């Protein structure tokens, strides 16, 4: 069930020079990060939570409050930028850059159609995991550079949490890699599209079916990586104000906020690619040119679906305690994901 990897440049893009293709990709990447993050904030954070709490949410700015986010951005742009005088200015100001750059590097591996991709790389998911781990340093920089007790404790907690849950996140992916025999995300999509379940190829073989445990571990670990409730101890507002973001005001605070939601979007997209078949929907031929157009939309649809899960958890569960957090990662998720890898590998080798 190895996918035949035949990646040709997009028919229209084939004639363009590298810098032209890259400019198009850069614009697409910017849109992929910002539009998706904006959509998630509006659909989930503004509207979904409002309906869950029996209120309407923003209604004034634009139809059904859909322009609220622009209004918020305008507000944040005008806010005074206060840097604490004891803070380490350079470290304090660089931290948002590190976090956002890590997110932008993450989007680069995503395929959105048979020819619509940013880079086609053999290391795909491994590269994504590597660059996502850089954001930890940004958060530690923010926590330490603020020179505030809340920030430092929040930053340390956040880092401890991020590294503890990065392992289940990494290891949950391995099952998919074993099944697909590749780390290239495009090939993983094609493997799922061309796969079959006991000889029936009606819907391909989305790995959520065979790797359900991996999917569950991935989503739980993702929840913690994004520091969303129930894993929001680093920003626990009742104890630590907003953790490592306490001293950040105005736009710099918004930047962390954008980073959080953009990362949620990109990681949901990675989960969609790994477990839900990415840009592919059953019924069409995976090689069809049509997917270059509808592929991105399908992917965004799956992203909204998966992030719905994330935000549903966020608004449903109360916060864990710090000790329960570490216990869950080290005593349950990591052994479970290793067991998952072992079983998958045994089946792969013996079958």
């Amino acid at each position, binding site marked *: 069930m190895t996918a035949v990897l035949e990646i040709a440049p997009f028919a229209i893009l084939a004639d363009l020079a590298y810098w032209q293709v890259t400019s198009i990709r850069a614009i697409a990447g910017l849109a992929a990060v910002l539009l998706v993050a904006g959509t998630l904030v509006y659909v989930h954070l503004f509207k979904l939570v409002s309906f869950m709490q029996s209120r309407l949410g923003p209604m004034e700015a634009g139809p059904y409050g859909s322009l609220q986010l622009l209004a918020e951005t305008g507000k944040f742009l005008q806010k005074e930028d206060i840097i604490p005088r*004891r*803070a*380490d200015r350079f*470290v304090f100001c660089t931290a948002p850059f590190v976090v956002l750059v890590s997110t932008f590097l993450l989007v680069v591996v995503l395929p959105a159609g048979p020819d619509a991709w940013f880079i086609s*790389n*053999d*290391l795909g998911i*491994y*590269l994504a*995991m*590597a*660059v996502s*781990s*850089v954001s*930890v*340093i940004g958060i*530690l*920089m923010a926590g*330490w550079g603020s*020179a505030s007790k809340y920030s*430092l404790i929040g930053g*340390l907690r956040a*880092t401890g949490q991020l*590294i503890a849950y*990065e392992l289940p996140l990494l290891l949950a992916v391995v099952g998919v890699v074993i099944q697909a025999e590749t*780390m290239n995300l495009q090939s993983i999509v094609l493997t799922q599209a061309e796969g079959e379940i006991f000889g029936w190829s009606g819907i391909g073989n989305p790995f959520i079916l065979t790797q359900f445990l991996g999917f569950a571990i991935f989503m739980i670990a993702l929840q913690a990586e994004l520091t969303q409730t129930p894993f929001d101890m680093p920003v626990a507002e009742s104890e630590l104000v907003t953790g490592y973001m306490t001293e950040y005001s105005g736009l710099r605070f918004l930047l962390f906020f954008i980073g959080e939601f953009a990362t949620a979007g990109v990681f949901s997209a990675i989960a969609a690619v790994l477990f839900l078949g990415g840009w592919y929907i059953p019924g069409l031929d995976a090689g069809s040119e049509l997917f270059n157009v509808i592929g991105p939309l399908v992917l965004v649809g799956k992203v909204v679906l998966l992030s719905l899960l994330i935000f549903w958890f966020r608004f449903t569960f109360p916060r864990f305690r710090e000790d329960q957090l570490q216990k869950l990662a080290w005593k349950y998720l990591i052994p479970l994901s290793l067991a998952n890898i072992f079983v998958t590998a045994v089946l792969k080798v013996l079958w």
Partner: protein
Amino acid sequence: MSDLLVAQNVFFGLIAVVMLVSAVRCVTTRNVVHAALWLVLVFAGSAALFILLGSEFVAVTQVLVYIGAIIVLFLFGVMLTRASMGDDASVASEKRAMAALVAVLLAAVMGLALFDSFSDTRLVIDEPQRFGVVSDAIFSQYIVAFEAVSVLLLAALIGAIVIARKD
């Protein structure tokens, strides 16, 4: 070919300058946290150099393990002992001359060893090295070393736990 070579050399120059400056700042700064952060740039630079050499697996591993894990370990270690803001006068110790001497000697020995064994070797990189090549080497030629790594890591962890538990 030549265009590519020029581009590679330009990028090598840029990366080398960044690495050199960061490395010097790393050892001359009086703030331990800053030193660790400068080290991030050095690691990033060496990852970029690996990319220029066509070995992407090593480059990505450099980012994942060194920037993503080792630096965090360093920073935790620093926060554990001494991570106050501003300059720390006690960092600049009086043993500087000795340290410089050791550094020069080490660089000389390592440089000489490298020069001695590889000075007449020409590295031709036409093709990037796929991760499969590295992986196949690990799981055939270096299988013993691979298993030994696990024991080494285990020993490091047990050592850390023994030190951490004062009771």
